[in-house]
């Protein structure tokens, strides 16, 4: 943040003005190019970064309200269900008496094995998990609905409300399209419930699972081998247990001449000069960001241009207040190309490049889905080259690594490896767009 971006972090202390700044989300609004060439319409990226504060001691963390929804359809038989149960057991051992947990299992019907209960009632919960046996079809929508219903029983704003879905299959009873599950996610997130979807093995519908997670602002991860299940579950719980802010609403009000083009990666509403996006949860010491592509009108060297005002409201889990942060960002113009390059914000650029490259990766996935294998391959190779070049310029290991990923992707488009590759691509896409921590 050595750039000259103006940052005004005003805390409107609506409830408790005495709370220290340590318990505030850090808002960082910056442009990829704070200095642009004068006299020319250009586009650049505006990044709204939000970093969760550190919770004060473990006991003070936000209590969780979690529904673990486990697919117990026939395909889960054997090691998968065993690992799933183990993962659930391990995860539950991390909860304490303030947390609420429920366990739902579904095949073609849904069973609430452990209705929402305090996590201290460990024996009943573990007994419920033990009762899970695999067999039958996959009523995924119903399973999530029932999980959400359990969460709803103790749905309060000062808890992290989450459904963790673990499935290895396709939804085949009830609504079974990504769209329908996406809608469910959209509606749940408005209630403050996120759904994390953990896809196990190669059988699940990653579009459906990732869309459900994305719309509800939960996590999505692809777990190829059931032995990794416990680890991933643990990560997810780590996230859940480190939530510091929720219901984060980011409003970007662009200046009159500035046109908001699009938000990369995330869902956002752009209406005129206004861009509104929500981020359900912020985790302690983790940054989540919104990347907006903006079109800057012609400017003159002498006159800096205000680009946008940013307002963020969120529920502070530490203070139990709704806090508001505001910030604004402006751009300066120069005649010198050199200066533009010199002044550019490499961190923001890196993130922007990441998002652009991810969008390309998504497009490549779509091409491959349409059977356009060669086009997909070309695009991936191009993407890899683009990343490679940017990595060099920006000295970014992250970009370099993603270049390698894209190159690998391009070599795994054949039918035999596509199924698994697609899932890992979706996984990475998801990680990139939502800044998943694991």
């Amino acid at each position, binding site marked *: 943040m050595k750039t000259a971006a103006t940052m005004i972090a005003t805390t409107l202390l609506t409830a408790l003005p005495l709370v220290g700044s340590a318990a505030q989300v850090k808002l960082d609004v910056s442009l990829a190019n704070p200095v642009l060439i004068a006299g020319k319409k250009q586009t650049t990226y505006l990044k709204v970064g939000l970093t969760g504060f550190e919770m004060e001691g473990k006991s003070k963390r936000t209590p969780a309200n979690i529904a673990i929804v486990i697919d117990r359809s026939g395909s889960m038989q054997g090691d998968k269900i065993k690992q799933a149960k183990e993962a659930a057991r391990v995860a539950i051992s991390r909860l304490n008496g303030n947390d609420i947990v429920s366990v739902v299992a579904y095949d073609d019907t849904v069973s609430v094995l452990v209705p929402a209960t305090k996590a201290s009632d460990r024996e009943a919960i573990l007994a419920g998990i033990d009762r899970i046996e695999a067999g039958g079809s996959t009523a995924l*929508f119903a399973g999530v609905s029932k999980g959400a219903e359990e969460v709803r029983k103790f749905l309060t704003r000062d808890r992290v409300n989450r459904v963790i879905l673990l499935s290895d299959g396709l939804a085949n009873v009830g*609504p079974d399209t990504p769209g329908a599950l996406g809608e469910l996610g959209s509606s749940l997130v408005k209630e403050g419930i996120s759904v994390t979807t953990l896809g196990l093995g190669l059988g699940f519908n990653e579009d459906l699972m990732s869309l459900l997670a994305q719309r509800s602002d939960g996590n999505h991860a692809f777990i190829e081998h059931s032995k990794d299940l416990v680890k991933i579950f643990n990560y997810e719980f780590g996230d859940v247990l480190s939530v510091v802010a929720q219901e984060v609403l980011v409003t970007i009000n662009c200046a009159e001449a500035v046109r908001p083009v699009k938000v990369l990666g995330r869902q956002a509403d752009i209406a005129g000069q206004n861009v509104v996006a929500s981020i359900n949860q912020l985790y302690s010491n983790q940054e989540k960001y919104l990347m907006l592509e903006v079109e800057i009108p012609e400017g003159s060297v002498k006159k800096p241009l205000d680009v946008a005002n940013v307002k963020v409201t969120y529920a502070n889990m530490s203070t139990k207040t709704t806090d508001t942060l505001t910030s604004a960002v402006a751009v300066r113009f120069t005649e010198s190309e050199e200066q533009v390059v010199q002044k550019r914000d490499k961190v923001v650029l890196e993130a922007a490049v990441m998002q652009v490259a991810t969008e390309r990766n998504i497009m490549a996935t779509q091409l491959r889905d349409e059977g356009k294998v060669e086009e997909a391959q070309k695009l991936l190779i191009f993407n890899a080259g683009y990343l490679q070049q940017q990595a060099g310029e920006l000295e970014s290991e992250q970009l370099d690594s993603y270049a390698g990923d894209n190159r690998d992707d391009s070599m795994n488009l054949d039918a035999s490896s596509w199924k698994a590759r697609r899932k890992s691509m979706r996984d990475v896409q998801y990680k990139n767009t939502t800044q998943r921590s694991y």
Partner: protein
Amino acid sequence: MKRRLVFILGLIVLLPLTVLVGFGIAVARQEKARAQSRYEQVLVGRLSDINSGIAKLVEVHQRELLQILELPTFEPDRIRAQVRTSRLARQLFVIAPTGDLLHPQKGGVLTAEERAFLERTESLWESGESFWIPEEIAATSKKRAIKGRKRVIRANDSGWHTWFWGEGLRLIFWVRRPTGHIVGAEVERAAMMSDVIAQLPVADYTRTPLPKGRIVLVDAQSRPLYQWGAFQPAKGTLPTVAQNLPAPFTAWSLHYFVPANGIGAALGRSAIFNIVTGLSALALSLIALATYFYRESSRDMHEASRRVTFVNQVSHELKTPLTNIRMYAELLEQRISEEDKRCRSYIDVLVAETQRLSRLITNVLTFATQRRGNLKLHPKTACVDSVIANVIASFDPALRAMGIEVVLEGKADRPVALDVDALEQILGNIISNVEKYATQATTLRLHREQHAGTTVVTVSDDGPGVPAAQRDTIFRPFVRLSNKLTDGVSGTGIGLTISRRLAMLHGGTLSLVPTASGATFKLTLKTPEANA
């Protein structure tokens, strides 16, 4: 005999049983149908309970939606903010009293979601049919509506509207403001569905009054959306009962599946059990009764047949001493001098009596044989006249003693196929009757005719004859003429029966010919001429 009895007894058991089983089945069917309908009522009742739960949920949703639609202003940003926090609303819209869409405004500054909404709902706006106007009003005021765009306005009117787009049913809930503005929400279908599902019981829901069953919530295409209950119906099974969901989910319905055997089992079991038990008891008692009768009568039959067998054996045993008496009497007769008349007459009595005894025995045995159905003839070449001569000869002493003259008329001397023993027996029986009953007779006339394979022998006496009333009965077994004449005369009463039977076996008849006086028996036998 025995088989017939078994058949009749079987009939006695089976006939009423069949009728009753038929009746029972009918009753059971009726009972089952009644039980089924009662059962279905119970099922329908359960579905109704579920539906009323869903209806309540819809009410809650409506209230929630009404709250959402209470927008203080129609500012786009305000509306957008409302959408962001309303889980039930995917999009909101406002229609001006003029019928124009105020928000989201076509061509206005819109978010991507709003543009998508316009795309989804395009058909609603294009069709010109305003769903917020009740149909009947729409129909009557169509003209006026076109002219003056005046509408019957009712404040706080609200309603649901459904249409299909993309993945299926979509819902709109709208409310009319007093200002005439229509404020509506495109309902987040998945949220409502999720709520409905969340409200429905889980798989192992145990408070169902019925042991096994499966309730499935299906969409318009009968695809299952949600299901519960421990029963797994086979694919393609039709639901036992079904019910549509309340508005606005009328396209969906609840299907209740129960195992086929569970229907009768739940309610009809006791009735069917009663019927089956009753029928079984009846069948058992009928069978017991039939068995009792069968035992009794077969014991009787057994007893009778044992008696017959006994008589048979005794009769056979009698034959040997009888042979000896007769043989030795005859041998004695040969040795006695012609002069010793008295001695000779005694021997004649001995011989005649052995012959009579032998006839009796033969009749008894023939009767027994006939009863067993084994009576057979053994025709061989013989001459009727010589048989008659033999018979007459054997009766000669007795008839002479009674002063009866034997007159032979006609002739039957051709060699024919004849059962000599049968003919002897028949004639013996007839003549012995004369000997027994016609004590005052003076003449015994035997007329013989033979032609074309038939022999007719008419035996007539000038005795008292057979009373008219008994002419029909004398050929029946064990019938004896029970008048004074028979007093003190022994006999088994089977002689004529046997004789007639033998005549019939011989292809002929034996009958009593009605005559003015005396008794005349006409014997006809089929006697094919013996070749060569």
